[in-house]
């Protein structure tokens, strides 16, 4: 059996982290299966490309490879392309089975893309069990974490989520051991946990409130492998809130520090921190490391009504204290706002911006994102929120209090403000 795992990125030189998990996990159970990873880069192609060169390249690759199954990893930037490629493949060669996975995929894509399956839970289990199915070991109805059409009706198979059957993270192969062909990257990413205890309505992880962790032994072995075998300048931890558990944070950073000291690699560590949970102990842990640390913090707004509507737990005094500590530390950071959340308006935005300009004193610009509604987030159920594309994650065009004109004006305002802020650095 031959399987292609495909993804599309703008940039080249990105380690295929998620696809490596899929390959590594599936091959643990099906070592004889030919599983190949291929990533396509479409560069800075924003103009109207009438010849669709990348699509032609990808479809040609799939056709010449003659796979039994093609799995597409779908993100916000690639879903439109993947849907069209999937449809094209099914027209040209309906024998090729297609599965779409990733956070961007919803049931709507089953008909739109003509694909055979979509993943509805962790993809590692879905792919491994689909191979089981094609080898005749189990029935299709027994494949977890997938959805498909049967007589035009959507069939949702069981999603693995209980304690007995859920994926133990330590059973996952370390992605950097799965794909050893290339050893030099600008940036590498790893996760030390999955889940987030907070239930922010705009965030995908609100669906996975239960925290699951890779063990420290697993991390020690694999982070050491990463340092011993790869060259990189940036190491990014993908965890939603790296400072959720201070002891664990200290232990993981100690592993990194030991490896930095051993290999003498000049490395910058990127983390996402919950601003309310930054205290002197967190700062002390970060400051004592033999590497530079860059922290990303999400505030989104300072308005109580906006934050409550988004179900984002908040404590602005703690945020303020956390920023004060960061301001006097060696840790670089950025903290940003989100424009377009329900309940927001221009004046609330101004007050939020003022809070950051007054307190985030080491930040030389004001980062503001236009809220993009992600598929599968709680806000997708909110009937007062409209986005640009019906089926795909995309920018918000209307909420209960604002519309696209308001969002665009905020964008222009922020662009102007940030140009003016640059004066300070000249």
């Amino acid at each position, binding site marked *: 059996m031959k399987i292609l795992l495909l993804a599309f*990125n*703008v*940039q080249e030189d990105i380690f295929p982290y998620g696809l490596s998990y899929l390959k590594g996990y599936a091959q643990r159970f099906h070592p004889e299966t030919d599983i190949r990873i291929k990533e396509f880069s479409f560069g*800075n192609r*924003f103009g109207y490309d009438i010849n669709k060169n990348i699509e032609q390249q990808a479809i040609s690759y799939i056709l010449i490879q003659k796979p039994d199954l093609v799995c597409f990893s779908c*993100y*916000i*930037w690639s879903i439109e392309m993947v849907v069209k490629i999937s449809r094209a493949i099914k027209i040209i060669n309906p024998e090729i089975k297609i599965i779409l996975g990733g*956070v961007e995929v919803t049931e709507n894509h089953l008909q739109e893309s003509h694909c055979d399956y979509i993943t509805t839970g962790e993809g590692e289990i879905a792919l491994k069990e689909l191979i089981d199915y094609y080898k005749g070991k189990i029935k299709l109805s027994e494949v977890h974490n997938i959805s498909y059409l049967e007589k035009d009706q959507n069939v949702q198979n069981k999603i693995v989520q209980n304690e007995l059957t859920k994926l133990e993270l330590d059973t996952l192969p370390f992605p950097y051991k799965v794909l050893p062909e290339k050893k030099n990257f600008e940036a590498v990413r790893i996760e030390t946990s999955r889940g*987030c205890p907070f239930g*922010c309505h*705009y*965030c*995908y*992880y609100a669906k996975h409130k239960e925290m699951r962790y890779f063990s420290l032994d697993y991390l020690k072995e694999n982070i050491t492998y990463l340092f011993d075998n790869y060259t990189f300048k940036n190491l990014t931890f*993908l965890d*939603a*809130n790296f400072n959720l558990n201070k002891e664990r944070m200290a232990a993981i950073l100690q592993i990194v520090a030991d490896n930095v000291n051993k290999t003498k690699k000049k490395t*910058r560590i990127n983390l*996402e921190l*919950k601003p309310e949970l930054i205290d002197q102990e967190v700062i002390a842990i970060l400051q004592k490391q033999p590497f530079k640390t*860059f922290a*990303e913090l*999400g505030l989104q707004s300072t308005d109580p009504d906006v934050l409550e509507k988004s179900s984002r737990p908040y404590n602005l005094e703690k945020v303020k204290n956390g920023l004060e500590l960061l301001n006097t530390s060696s840790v*670089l950071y*950025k903290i*940003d706002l*989100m424009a377009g959340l329900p309940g927001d308006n*221009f*004046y609330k935005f*101004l*007050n939020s*911006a*003022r809070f950051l*300009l*007054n307190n985030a*004193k*080491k*930040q*030389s*610009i004001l980062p503001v*994102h236009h809220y*993009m509604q*992600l598929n599968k*987030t709680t806000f997708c159920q909110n009937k007062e929120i409209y986005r640009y594309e019906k089926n795909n*994650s995309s920018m918000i065009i209307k909420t209960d209090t604002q519309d696209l004109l308001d969002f*665009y*004006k905020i964008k*222009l*305002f922020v*662009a*102007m403000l940030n*140009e*003016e*802020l*640059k*004066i*300070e*650095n*000249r």
Partner: protein
Amino acid sequence: MVYKTFVKLLLCSKKLLPQTEETIYKISPILVQNMLKSNLVDVTELNTKLNKETNRFKDNLVIKINKKEDLDKLILPDQRIKGIQLKLSLLKEVKQLRFNYYSIIVDNNVEHLIVSFDNLKKGAFVEILLPLTTYRQINDQQDILSKVNRVIIELNNQEQIKQLNEIFSDLILKKFYPFTKGVPFCQTQIEHCWELFNQQNIIITKKAKECQDCLLTEYCNYQNNNQDSSQNQQFEVKPIKEIKPELINFLKDENTATRF
């Protein structure tokens, strides 16, 4: 938090954010709290505004240049000011002084506007304040507006209010956040009033009697100038009876030291 990862990946993937964040999120040498605000002072006031301990000016001072001789007093080798405000006609005189911020008052004489801009320091923030009639003269000249970061259009009568929507539409198409100056808060969307962000420069001497019951009377710069024919500032004002609390929150902090 994971939301940010998605959006960041998207933005990076579309090159909307620089890939090396360190370049833009570096430590700022000065606190950044006083943006959009220009604390206008006359050249003669400079010494009183200098902080002797830090040898720096405070509060984003913008020095008003009223005449050519004022420029001679502006050689400030080690002292930071935000920039200068001057009339377009004086702009050709500032070749020797390189500022990061220029606030240019444009009158009706716009013939040499683009040539004058060529004298400015590359990368400087340029703001122009101009009457609506003057804006009409230059609004199809993209080469002029491409050198400008902020356009503030001054209105002075009720008839011009009818054109506000077209002005906003035009500015937005040209990628400017729309700002007006001189328009009473009751006659427009307040977020577009330049005075909302520059309360410290508002001097109110005589309010119109129609403003007495207005909730924003102490924040709006409109005053009864019917007897002042030179300003010709004539609007049909009406009291604002309802406002968003967050607007009041923003205005209340306007004159504090930590406002932007």
